[in-house]
């Protein structure tokens, strides 16, 4: 069902983990539909993404797309990272089954959400970046108690 590349990224996820005091953190997806991705970005003063980490709750494709997305944005400028589309992630993984395409969309959105967080923290505006729609952090916050 999955390509070798997807399986490789699922079995050996790259950049899995978290960054303390990250420049930007974005969480997208929701537990209801079964996929949540969180991206941590470490962006230096020149706007270069020095480090990136992810955490993902989801299927094999969700993990693999997160992992691939981190590889595609690491070392890139903010503008370059914005150009990493879900299509680019899918192509880099040699494709995904049709029912899993939404996972690659989530990976794209997770990067955007982390960049949005970075922009907000620093009071800057990033050209071409829109406020991510599926950030779940606010609504889910109070549910456990």
């Amino acid at each position, binding site marked *: 069902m999955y390509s070798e590349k997807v399986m490789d990224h*699922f079995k050996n996820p790259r950049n899995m983990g978290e960054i303390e005091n990250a420049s930007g953190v974005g969480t997208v997806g929701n537990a*209801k539909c*079964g996929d949540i991705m969180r991206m941590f970005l470490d962006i230096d003063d020149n706007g270069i993404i020095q480090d990136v980490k992810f955490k993902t*709750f989801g299927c*094999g*494709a969700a993990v693999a797309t997160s992992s691939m997305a981190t590889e595609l944005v690491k070392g890139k400028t903010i503008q370059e990272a914005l150009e990493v589309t879900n299509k680019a992630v899918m192509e880099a993984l040699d494709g995904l089954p049709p029912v899993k395409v939404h996972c690659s969309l989530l990976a794209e959105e997770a990067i955007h959400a982390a960049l949005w967080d970075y922009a907000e923290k620093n009071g800057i505006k990033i050209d071409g970046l829109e406020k991510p729609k599926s950030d779940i952090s606010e609504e889910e916050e109070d549910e456990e*108690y």
Partner: protein
Amino acid sequence: MKKMIYLDNAATTRTAPEVVEAMLPYFTEYYGNASSIYEFGAKSKEAITKARETIANALGARDNEIYFTAGGSEADNWAIKATAEAYRDKGNHIITSKIEHHAVLHTCQYLEKNGFEVTYLDVDEQGMVKLEQLKAAIRPTTILITIMLANNEIGTIEPVAEIGKIAKEHGILFHTDAVQAFGQVPINVDEMNIDMLSASGHKLNGPKGIGFLYIRKGVKIRSFIHGGAQERKRRAGTENVTGIVGMGKAVELALSTMEERAARERELRDYLMSRILKEVPFSRVNGPRENRLPNNASFCFQFIEGESLLIMLDMGGICGSSGSACTSGSLDPSHVLLAIGLPHEIAHGSLRLTLGADTTKEDIDVTVEAVKKIVAKLREMSPLYEDFMKKNAKK
């Protein structure tokens, strides 16, 4: 290759070697058409008759009440659609439950598009149909109650004898999908007031592509396939002789070993469930402890997703299944897990392990160790777990 641990016997089973052996002569030696006049064809006919008797005896039925089909889904489709058609003058209402197999649910949904009304009964947190709700759902127009004998995902054995009694008191036909239960638990169609029952060969170490529908004598449902006199003209087509012989043998074996096998599987299953509950934090067992199929164990692990768990188990040579959305081809997790009241995020983290005659204690130990490691690894990756741990640390 690493030894495979097969814990998905609710999906399908290994065809027993004795079953294959019984089938073999009917491929190359006795290949005659059972409808032929010559002695050679009679060999096939005899074999079919013998298998039919074995199956009828296993259910406390008469052999002219067993109709061979190509499997369980066909039997479910036939029972429901044909009853709807035959009894349409009497009414257009069908009662079923929310946790049926899709062969029943989708058939009911199809009928809804064609003018029928269907009540989908709730179940309690163990997956048990509520009898009071069933009684309250009965209308003058109710023509059929179809409720499974045991659930395929969480193993719940439904109160079929009570349901059958209620159906009989109201003069309503009662069909039960016994695909998971047949060969696992004792069934008697008279004692349980069952009018129709579906079963399948490959769930009880028989071959795939064969099953049957039991239809009580006197129930007038239409023929499923027209075109020949086979199966008392109700299911035309040259008989799948090898399949029928294989199913007969499988039923003979399943019935003669049922008690001993169930006791053994129940013990291993309980050991598996207690180890998981004790050794994997934030885990739960789905379905009841009693009134449960002896070989079924169903779990949910918080903060992780089922498909990832399955792939990692597979990497360790362990075959299981899950009711997560990713394995169902939709965004929703299993309808059964939702029906027992689990929230989506818990239902996504489900794992079903179903034991078989070949399962050993060592298999269970290896599986538990693998599950422990994989769940921990996936939680390390999970933003839900991260949030949960941070909140707990704050508390």
